[in-house]
């Protein structure tokens, strides 16, 4: 079954295009990372899912329910951490969770939920006094109430310290193992890389890539980069390397710190040793050797042509 099914969703504000014909299918049970720089349209897409915003064109379904026409049914089995919310005035943390429990007709214990997101000791304080990170934890707690089949989280790690972000990822993993589908947006690549099965990259309202992280690496040319420092470079050495099976590119790199020439090679993972053997066969001494895996960051820049 399909958890989220978007069909050519567009949203325009005046002449601004926030979303441009986004087609997206998130399968049940997967963890999907929605990646893009700030302002790319990630939140707009999530707001369409939640019916905070009506799309100009196209439609989107959650578990087969149209998000605009059958919004309540669409939101019936999901947990949400939206963007741009604020907590309710005059309600304690515990009362927030209780409100979610009553609204979802669930039977969770509020203290268990608060314990899980790590703010149990603040249960009876007014939530307006919480820090941003605590508020994120609280709303994540509200999202977890009732064992939702789908979690939709907009920039969940906002306001969390590295520890908190790690705890958040741990909870997402647990929820995914329980069987929940996870859909979350982020502009922080490491987080997406750490937990996601598949990634979608959004740029200026357009979905420019949807693939597994492995797939994205492959489509970027094997993804492994070798930086080899040699004692000397002869004519034809680069051509020799280019002749090795699996090698995509071989170029002169920057000189190393002690003035030795370097060669930068991109190749498949399997071809690494072949390259070194080939150099040895050609009488070139390898002084130093390191590999760099193409990070999501590289891919991100490749796809979006921009740094964060």
């Amino acid at each position, binding site marked *: 079954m399909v958890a989220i099914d978007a069909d050519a969703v567009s949203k325009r504000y005046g002449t601004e295009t926030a979303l441009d014909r986004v087609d997206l299918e998130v399968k049940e049970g997967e963890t999907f990372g929605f990646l893009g720089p700030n302002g790319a349209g990630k*939140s707009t897409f999530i*707001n369409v899912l*939640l*019916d*905070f*915003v*009506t799309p100009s064109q196209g439609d989107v379904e959650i578990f087969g329910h149209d998000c605009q026409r059958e*919004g*309540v049914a669409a*939101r*019936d089995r999901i947990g*949400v951490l*939206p*963007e*741009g*919310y*604020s*907590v*309710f*005035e*005059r*309600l304690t943390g515990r009362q*927030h969770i209780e*409100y*979610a429990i*009553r*609204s*979802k007709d669930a039977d969770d214990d509020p203290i268990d939920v608060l314990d899980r997101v790590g703010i149990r000791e603040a249960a009876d304080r007014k939530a307006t006094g919480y820090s941003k990170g605590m508020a994120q934890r609280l*709303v994540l707690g*509200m*999202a977890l109430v009732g064992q939702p089949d789908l979690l939709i989280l907009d920039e969940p790690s906002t306001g969390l310290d590295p520890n908190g972000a790690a705890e958040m990822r741990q909870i997402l993993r647990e929820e995914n193992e329980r069987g929940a589908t996870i859909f979350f947006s982020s502009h922080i690549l490491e987080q997406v890389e750490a937990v996601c099965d598949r990634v979608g990259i959004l740029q200026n309202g357009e979905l420019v890539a949807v693939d597994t992280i492995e797939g994205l690496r492959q489509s970027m040319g094997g993804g492994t980069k070798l930086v080899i420092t040699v004692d000397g470079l002869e004519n034809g050495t680069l051509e020799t390397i280019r002749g090795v099976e699996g090698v995509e590119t071989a170029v002169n790199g920057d000189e190393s710190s002690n003035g030795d020439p370097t060669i930068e090679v991109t190749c498949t993972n399997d071809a690494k040793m072949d390259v070194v053997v080939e150099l040895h066969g050609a009488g070139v001494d390898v002084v130093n050797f390191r590999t760099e895996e193409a990070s999501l960051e590289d891919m991100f820049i490749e796809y979006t042509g921009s740094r964060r």
Partner: protein
Amino acid sequence: MTWEVIARQDWSVTVETRSAKVLLGLLVSVVLLAGYIYPIAAPEPITTARFSSFAMGGLTLTVPFVGMLLSYGAVVDERESGSILLSLSLPHSRRDVVLGKFLSRTGLVTAATAGSMLVAGALVVYPFGELVLGRFLVFLGLTVLFVVVWCGLGLAVSLAAATRRRALVLGFGLVFLFVIIWEAVVDALTIGLNAAGIVDGELPETVQFLVGLEPSLVFERATTGFVLPGESVAGPWYLGEWVALGVLVCWVVGPLGLAFLRFDGSDLS
């Protein structure tokens, strides 16, 4: 259908706020004071039916202020802060949220009004007055409807405006127009038309109907027609009490309906 959750939540939070306590206290005091003074100040006979015309002045002044001030922020406050997004992330429709808020806010003002009216009725009856139960209950019902009109207008303002400030301006504009200057405008219109020689004496009945659409005037006409003994509303049928009742209902349904459509179709972030 989860409006009940919203209504409970909103009631328990609103009732705790100081502004609600002050506003509801004001309303209760005005009604009780009317019930206390009426048997002393008014001419015989003292009955709960005739009490209605005595209480009218205080009610038409207080209820609009209290209803408006207690309701104008109901939705727009949460919309401006963003906490409405938490409610609408849960399986609540916008209609559930609005219905819950409407029931909670009108419920609060209605409870205060009805409770104080019952006590005021007792003050009227004891020791010299006469209880005319049926007419008193009809008056109670009309007063509650009047309360609902103004809470509804407040909520309509809350739905139509995108910011709290705009809602406040719009709400106060309505109260100012209807409660404070409407009568003066109608008087000026009468004098002006008389001076111009277009009418002689009173306004034509159709114009009377139009200027009489203002909620307090409709409430008065309905009360006069249904509650006051031995009085009937003079003039054509459309100035009668049944039409007045219908107009009051329209004041509830119309503004709220239109404002809801606007709210339902708008983007929230």
